[in-house]
């Protein structure tokens, strides 16, 4: 019956919405989200496996800006990412033999200038600060549309 179909639609008027008001409210992404990279300069040996595995060839090697020498890195070279090309597959992180690269939940990488998309090793070493504060909570009961977003502070510790 066509009225049955209409009734299903009308039922949803009384259900809670699950919209998040981005960019005022940001969702906290799960651990291991493949956003931009974090580089631990004290671990990097400059072996170049990340650049070899990179499908988009967006990694080049540069010396550190401060000229400081790192004992574990004999050639004194560190990866520099060009985020205009990166496809965020993070094979560089998975194939890094020393764990010098890591995932980060930072995904807001838009810039007004193309040159700013080239991230130097020093810039990659900074830990991101613009992390979301809302977490998706799945209910799955009949009264809701599956999921709501709640501030992280209110989360019960599991």
């Amino acid at each position, binding site marked *: *019956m*066509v009225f*049955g*179909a209409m*009734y*299903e*639609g009308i039922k949803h008027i009384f259900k809670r919405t*699950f919209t998040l008001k981005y960019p005022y409210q940001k969702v906290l*992404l*799960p*651990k*291991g*989200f*493949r956003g931009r990279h974090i580089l631990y300069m004290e671990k990097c040996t400059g072996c170049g496996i990340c650049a*070899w*595995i*990179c*499908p*988009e060839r967006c990694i080049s090697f540069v010396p550190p800006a401060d000229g400081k020498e790192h004992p574990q890195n004999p050639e004194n070279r560190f990866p520099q990412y060009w985020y205009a090309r990166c*496809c*965020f*597959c*993070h*094979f560089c992180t*998975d*194939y890094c033999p020393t764990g010098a690269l890591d*995932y980060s939940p930072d995904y807001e990488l838009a810039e007004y200038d193309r040159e700013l998309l080239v991230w130097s090793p020093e810039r990659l070493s900074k830990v991101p600060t613009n992390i979301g504060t809302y977490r*998706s909570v*799945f209910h*799955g*009961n*009949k009264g809701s*549309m*599956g*999921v709501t977003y709640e501030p992280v502070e209110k989360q019960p510790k*599991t």
Partner: protein
Amino acid sequence: MTTNPDQTKPTAPPIAITAAKEPSTLDVSVGPQHPGSGHLRMLMRVDGDYIVSVDPDIGYVHRGCEKIAEYRTAVSNIPHLERPCIIDAIHLNWGYVLPIEELQGIVVPPRGQYISTIAAEMNRIMSHLYWLAINAGVFSGHTTIFMYAFGDRDLFIELAEMLTGARLTYSFLPPGGPRRDLPAEFQDRLLKLLDYFERRLVEYDRIFFSNPLVIARAKGIGTLKRDEAIKLGMTGPVLRGSGVKYDVRKVEPYGAYADLDFEIPVFEEGDSYARFLVRFEEMKQSIKIIRQALEKMPKGPIARKAPLIIPEGEAIGRVESSRGELTYMVKGDNSDKPSRVKIMNGSFRSLIALPYLIRNVHVADMPIIYGSLDYWPVEADR
């Protein structure tokens, strides 16, 4: 002032306005700027409200994936080879990895096979929800189901993000096995989501599949008979909608499908509505597969270390993707790059049926038939 003597003569006979005796046809170009067709142009010959013939013009989103694959290493091929159909990324990835594993002689550990199977079936649900929203919902003017299906698809995307780290382009299965084990809260949340989604499927049935308006538009439209479907080389839901029980997951089981109990939904009618129902029933079967896989999940390692070199030889991998059978041929020559990659996918095969289905139908039936094939232009153009 002299007069031109020619002007006095009648220059042309008067135009005779008579009714055309032969049926007049008009050639219309549909697309490629996405009027519901994707990046595909359809040269349509219409006679009034009837379509006389359709000639699909493809190749607008050809990227040369097969050629690019010869310049990338075995692992770094994965991100760009799953781009042709990003909403079905796990299947495109898995099909490429199977022949490489065969050449390298690696057997993925059982736990890895089960995780891959769960990811693939979640991907099938997501892909079918996308089809339900756009190709079935929007093309038939049913915007309510578009909102519902997209909303529920996002719940699965959130879980995929939890498992793989990305929303769509997962790059989850390099040679050797999946990249990550199941996260801590993943299993509970997935089971809760499946319960919720099962209830939602009942609502989908009431609002869309049993809706008399949808049935009136889709039933008996674009009928592809069993013999024709086999002759044209259809695969996947299109073939099963024409009454042929064929599924790579049963015929040539890969992953953990050999251990799992599931059915292949088959409908005899062969019309657009039958193809709608095949995908609807497939979502139910995917729920069943995921539940079983979570239950039977073995313990142990998830992946093995794979060599970086593809040995000399040639191998073929087949998977049942959301749009039909997907075949990859990979040829190795003892280097880290494949010397040849050949892709054959379900979308391209579905397109072969399009000129046969859109014939002697109303213009308004074209989006329904096109949507029922679940054609993805980028996947077909590769």
